[in-house]
């Protein structure tokens, strides 16, 4: 997982939630950041645009913190680079 990817995810979260970038770290969890379900779908929307990927619903249900979110994006980016998108 590259530092560039992590920084882009952190920036998307901060921009979407309209909170100072320094408040979001790889170790933040959503509860600490006061991210509710509607905030979460907005962040997913922004991440899909940022990385030009489609994030399936079942991939996000268990995600509770920024690290899991970065790992999920990393996996989707790897899948995207290695061939046609997986059938959802």
């Amino acid at each position, binding site marked *: 997982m590259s530092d560039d990817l992590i920084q882009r995810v952190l920036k998307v979260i901060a921009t979407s939630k309209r909170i100072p970038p320094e408040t979001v770290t790889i170790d933040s969890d959503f509860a600490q950041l006061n991210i509710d*379900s*509607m905030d979460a*779908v907005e962040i*997913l*929307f922004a991440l899909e645009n940022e990385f030009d990927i489609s994030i399936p*619903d*079942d991939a996000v249900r268990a995600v509770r913190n920024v690290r899991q979110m970065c790992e999920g994006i990393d996996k989707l980016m790897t899948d995207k680079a290695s061939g046609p998108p997986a059938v959802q």
Partner: protein
Amino acid sequence: MVRVAITGAGAICALGRTAAEFAAAISSGRSAIGPIRSTDMSEFRFQNGAEVPDYSHTPYFDDRRADFMDRFAQFAVIAAREAVADAAPAWTPELRENAAIITGSCVGGQSTEDIGFQEVYKHGRNRVHPLTIPKTMANAGASHISMEFGVTGPSFTISTACSSAAHAIGQAYWMVRSGAAPLAITGGSEAPFSFGILKAWEAMRVVSPDTCRPFSKDRHGMILGEGAAMLVLEPLEAARARGAHIHAEIVGFGMSADASHITQPSAEGAARAMRAALRDAALSPEQIGYINAHGTGTLANDISESAAIHAVFGSRVKNLPVSSTKSMHGHALGAAGALECLASIVALRDGILPPTANFNEPDPECDLDVVPNHARAARVEYALSNSFAFGGLNAVLALRAMAY
């Protein structure tokens, strides 16, 4: 205070094209959820909905009249025709002049708008069809009903998302009860199956990838539906005097606002609406024998609604059947409250409690008797019909069986 009878009912939705077909379907626990056919779904994460199968404006409207009506307005008039024919009011010039029409709709004719805006945004044209505005306006259903019957009294539309129809019926009930209107045609209609609207629902990540399983531990969200249900309300004594058939009685209406979050439901707000309906009807919780739940099948709604029902009914919950007919007709948004009010009427009238279909597994966080999968024969005197909208605007109707 005037007692208010329901003397006419009409419906069109995925389960059928008349109130009788609707009643037969919910009483047999048949779910009408299946692949969405009216829109190209190849680019969607979900595929299923509850559409009126093979719908065409014929035989209901000639081509020229249909030109002026979005699908949601057509549904409104189709259901209103059936309800009015069923009630067979003793029309006089005075009755037509003073009768009320109150409809609910969430998105109105946005499907027409969606198509019109594709012309300018996608196809690069410089104009949209001139009927886009009159077809899109959410009050078109009420307007077309008024023209259909020459009814010229107070007529308007309420748009409170998923509570629209329940707010509309409640308002109509209060107008008849207070004497402000001698008769009301009321309900809701919706037709949300167009590409842009479906994309907006997809983005919220609340639509189930398979089906709607309210209160089931393995539920994965809601399923959109479409259609309309309309009722005719009139004073009970007047209805009896003219020998009208009475389906059931509306006895109370309660509303509340959560004042908390634009999408997350609040159990406290829902409980306050149920208590308000009981208070308006002068009923105690012990008298309620059935609740038609809002029961969307989303993780959040079903937990919150269960908590609200526990808060209002306490230990009574153990013996209180609660079902969500959205498992069969889908979530018809601004028509939902009307279809579900009709489901409650059917339960009271026919003595058959409709089930929660597609139910697999109890959820400890939804500890209710949800009438799983199979309808239940039960004579119930009083029922509640719950509607809780995005935006935290709640409406609950209290109904009474006519046999009592």
